[in-house]
């Protein structure tokens, strides 16, 4: 088992593997999200709750909650790969962290966007300094900081390690930030907190939410692997395996020096 792990820990062998996995994850994501949306729109009540009913707009939570969950999970994934990279000094882990970041930032942005759209009909304002929305905003800043630092450093090794350290500092600070936003008055903490207890959510709401979350996970794998392949390719452009793979792929499609496209069609895509 150990040998296997090390085999796939090298960029050269991970590249084709990721290529095979991308379409699978993408397909799973599409199916799960479509089922989730179908259940969410056609097998749920139009109103929620009794005394203070939430009308059709509550359906926004079918994307709001999954995007918010994903944004937090992906930040943990980012910090996790960063830590692994710093401890074991493996380049692939840094690349992984780097590949996850933009997807995480997109989910964070979407959580903010959908949160604002949910806030308008339910609270009467697009932006309220609600603790959870505010934390989401801070998380967005952390993602942006990570990506900005990484792209500001030319030397890829320094960029990887510096951004990784930042991600770890961020993950340590995040609970403290979250807590300080949730409880700005330490004398009286419970007031602002909106408790949400999973047991109190009706199954018809929970099921589409979970389906879409799983779909988003699958989607995140797909995009992270796509981005990872690009990162590997640019960084390893000098290496023998990239050269061999590209020249081989070219020979397969029979492309002469005249064609401008280097992408082989159809079957070859898994490898290249």
């Amino acid at each position: 088992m150990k040998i296997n792990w090390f085999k796939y820990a090298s960029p050269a062998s991970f590249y084709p593997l990721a290529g095979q996995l991308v379409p699978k994850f993408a397909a799973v994501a599409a199916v799960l999200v479509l089922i989730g949306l179908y259940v969410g729109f056609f097998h749920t009540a139009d109103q929620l709750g009794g005394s203070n009913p939430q009308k059709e707009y509550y359906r926004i939570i079918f994307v709001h909650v999954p995007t918010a969950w994903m944004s937090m999970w992906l930040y943990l994934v980012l910090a996790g790969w960063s830590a692994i990279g710093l401890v074991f000094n493996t380049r692939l882990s840094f690349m992984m962290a780097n590949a996850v970041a933009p997807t995480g930032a997109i989910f964070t942005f979407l959580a903010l966007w959908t949160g604002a759209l949910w806030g308008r009909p339910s609270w009467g304002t697009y932006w309220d300094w609600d603790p959870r929305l505010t934390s989401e905003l801070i998380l967005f800043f952390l993602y942006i900081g990570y990506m900005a630092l990484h792209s500001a450093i030319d030397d890829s090794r320094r960029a990887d390690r510096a951004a990784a350290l930042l991600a770890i500092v961020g993950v340590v600070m995040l609970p403290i930030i979250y807590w300080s936003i949730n409880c700005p008055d330490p004398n009286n903490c419970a007031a602002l907190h909106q408790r949400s207890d999973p047991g109190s959510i009706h199954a018809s709401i929970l099921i589409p939410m979970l389906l879409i979350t799983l779909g988003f996970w699958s989607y995140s794998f797909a995009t992270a692997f796509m981005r990872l392949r690009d990162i590997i390719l640019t960084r390893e452009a000098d290496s023998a395996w990239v050269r061999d793979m590209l020249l081989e792929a070219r020979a397969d499609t029979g492309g002469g020096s005249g064609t401008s496209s280097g992408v082989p069609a159809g079957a070859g895509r898994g490898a290249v």
Partner: protein
Amino acid sequence: MLEVLDLSCRRGDRLLFSGLGFELPAHTLLHVRGRNGSGKTTLLRALCGLLQPDAGVIRWRGEPVTELGDDFNRELLYFGHLNGIKADLTGLENLRVAATLDQDPVTDAVIIAALAQIGLAGFEDLPTRMLSQGQKKRVALARLILSKAPLWILDEPFTALDTDAVALLEALIAGQVASGGAVVLTTHQEVALTQGEIRRLDLGPAAPQ
């Protein structure tokens, strides 16, 4: 004393050298040569531990430097492209700080004597920003006189020095080698060494860019 096994370093995504190995016993000077961009400075910084090599081991007295940590740093004197001299401090203050950092406290008299030896008598109380480029470099080189470190790693120490200073530096290096130390050096000029052994290490070609 210093032993390098199968060392490879990259800068960014470019591999500078790989599989590099050599041994540096006491009483020896290693002259690292190579064209611009061949990785001389990178090698020296890797030897100091300022830069983590991609692969390979560096041993000091038989133990990997990664495990020695600060203990190795204490036995080492590095002299880089930058002088490591604060322009707003006087020569005396600069050297006092350097000596304290080496945990090798010396009296001011010793520092003043060292500055005099390097040709800066009377300049010890001037902020170094008022000195010329060559004089600043001399202040930095006074560290070599004060240093008791057995390993010196010197990156282009001869640049910006006049003939007197070059002769003095050569004498200092020779003294270090004679007293049982080891020196790693990059320079474009031939070193006249009177005692000990000179080894040469040629780093591979870097394409002229």
